[in-house]
């Protein structure tokens, strides 16, 4: 297939279809409605299931039902809609059935706005639904990357019988870029042993997240925790640029990481030895890699479109051993390369005292601006 100009939300939809998507249930919400609209035409064209549900609550529960049959199923939404889905996500995780969730993050909290943000990091990565569960989270930074990660999302979800979330934002969802969609994979014709598909010639399957007896529930909890450990050991993915000889590193995911890339290149042109680590998996987080990296750096800069949510994970991973600065924009504001470059220059001037939390230092600096 050749490169074509694709809108992010539609590319994600087509990539899912080509990855063998069997059912899509969703609800309109800006800035991801194009995914719903695209699939409302494409899925019936291919004889696959599509329903615009009565709400995100309805949608996630339809996903839950389809996931229990072992079918490749997905939904997409944006921040306020994702909050509505949290109940269903917890149930899906507790029942250990696979699904793919696309969150096209917008400004918040509350109704917020429709501009891009990364404010859902904690909600998605650290589990916004109740209980101990650990979704796998992928963070693309371009339309092509979104496409590439869709097939991986379904594969990981099925491999681990888990939720795999693809965390993007309004700009990636809305932008148009050249992308190549992989060839169409056939839809599955067999179903997993555990699925509820009708007990033909076998013992019945019951898919539930209830375990009234605490000892039995704890067995489930340990299973989920150990699965997270396994995923941490095997599935970390990240991209690194200019880190071989780096004295400083910028850490950013998604659009923030992409903007940082431009700033890093500009900084290199000014002979600042800075590189970029852009996590692709936010869960599992590249803990080991950041830990190792921090041992040979003089300073780190975390760039996000929120108040410093991944920042805390970076600080934990690096064990506060290296002076770390933070720069964030919120509410739908995009950090621009010039701003990030200014932060890199500031970092390169000399490591800052560690007595003040990077978030507090950033809030003070931003007083002049906002």
């Amino acid at each position, binding site marked *: 297939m050749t490169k074509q100009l694709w809108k992010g939300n539609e590319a994600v939809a087509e990539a899912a279809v080509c990855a063998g998507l069997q059912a899509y249930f969703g609800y309109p919400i800006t800035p991801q409605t194009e995914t719903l609209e695209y699939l409302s035409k494409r899925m019936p064209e291919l004889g696959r299931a599509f329903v615009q549900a009565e709400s995100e609550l*309805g*949608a996630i529960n*339809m996903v*839950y*039902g389809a996931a229990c*049959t072992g079918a490749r199923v997905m939904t997409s939404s944006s921040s306020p809609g994702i909050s509505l889905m949290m109940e269903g996500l917890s149930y899906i995780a507790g029942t250990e059935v696979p699904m793919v969730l696309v969150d096209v993050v917008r400004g918040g909290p509350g109704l917020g706005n429709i501009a891009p943000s990364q404010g859902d990091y904690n909600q998605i990565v650290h589990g916004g639904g109740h209980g101990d569960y650990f979704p796998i989270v992928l963070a693309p930074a371009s339309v092509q990357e979104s496409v590439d990660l869709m097939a991986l999302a379904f594969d990981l979800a099925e491999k681990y019988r888990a939720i795999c979330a693809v965390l993007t934002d309004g700009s990636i969802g809305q932008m148009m870029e050249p992308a190549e969609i992989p060839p169409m994979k056939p839809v599955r014709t067999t179903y997993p042993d555990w699925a*509820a598909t009708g007990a033909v010639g076998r013992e019945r*399957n019951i898919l*539930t997240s209830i375990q009234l007896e605490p000892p039995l529930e704890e067995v489930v909890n340990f299973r989920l925790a150990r699965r997270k450990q396994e995923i941490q050991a095997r599935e970390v993915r990240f991209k690194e640029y200019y880190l071989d000889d780096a004295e400083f590193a910028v850490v950013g995911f998604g659009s923030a990481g992409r903007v940082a890339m431009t700033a890093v290149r500009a900084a290199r042109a000014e002979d600042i030895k800075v590189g970029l680590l852009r996590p692709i998996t936010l869960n599992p987080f590249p803990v080991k890699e950041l830990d190792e990296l921090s041992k040979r750096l003089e300073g780190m800069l975390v760039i996000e479109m929120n108040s410093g949510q991944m920042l805390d994970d970076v600080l934990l991973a690096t064990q506060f051993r290296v002076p770390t600065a933070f720069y964030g924009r919120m509410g739908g504001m995009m950090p621009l390369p010039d701003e990030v470059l200014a932060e890199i220059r500031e970092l390169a001037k000399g490591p800052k005292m560690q007595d003040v939390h990077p978030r507090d230092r950033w809030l003070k600096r931003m007083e002049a601006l906002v």
Partner: protein
Amino acid sequence: MATPQLNMELVYERPEALTDTATHYCPGCTHGIAHRLVAEVIDEMNVRERTIGVASVGCSVFAYNYFDFDWVQSPHGRAPAMATGVKRVLPDRVVFTYQGDGDMASIGMGEIVHAAARGENITVIFINNANYGMTGGQMAPTTLPGMKTTTSPNGRDVEQMGYPIRAAELLATLDGASYIVRRSLHDPKNIRLAKKAIRTAFETQVRGLGFSMVELLSTCPTNWNMTPVEAQKWLEEKMVPYFPIKDFKIHPALAEIKV
């Protein structure tokens, strides 16, 4: 079990679709009758191996322990949406939800209305016993005016707490609904009629005729503070007048079916 006498033929035995398990329901609770009728219908239609039940949240939360076919468990109120997900992916299976009045008519009102409006080809068994049984007898959307529950201790005051919802009548207004009836489980005659209705509802599904729901007026002896026999009398005297036993929506194609 004692062996039957010679030259006696078997008239009735426990349906195969029920597992050989004692239920956790209170003695005399009509959940058991509803379960049995559903199981009998599934046996008679010979669809056990392609049936998938969607359990809800209420006293029947463990319904899946009592039937010998696949089940999935939905969050409170979401069973119609979950059933939609299953049926859309596996359209040739028999998919039904089993929900109480709190589950379907309170928290789940959005999901049931839209599943019916969409004409989803699923069957809903709706157990109406005028209170929230599992959590100890609180007021439900179906609690009668003046009826005492743990959250309407002085009797349901319609000024403060509003009026009960007649779910069958409500859903029957939707064009997408194909078979909506109310029956009762308070005496043998009505139980027989209830079974016929359940059979017709499942026939609606397998013939692809759309959304079907059977509302079953049911007793809750424990929370009503009555014996099972008294509870059936109370149902007949107090609930039937408010929730009439009638057909509210019948798809024309169903008129030809004899069950």
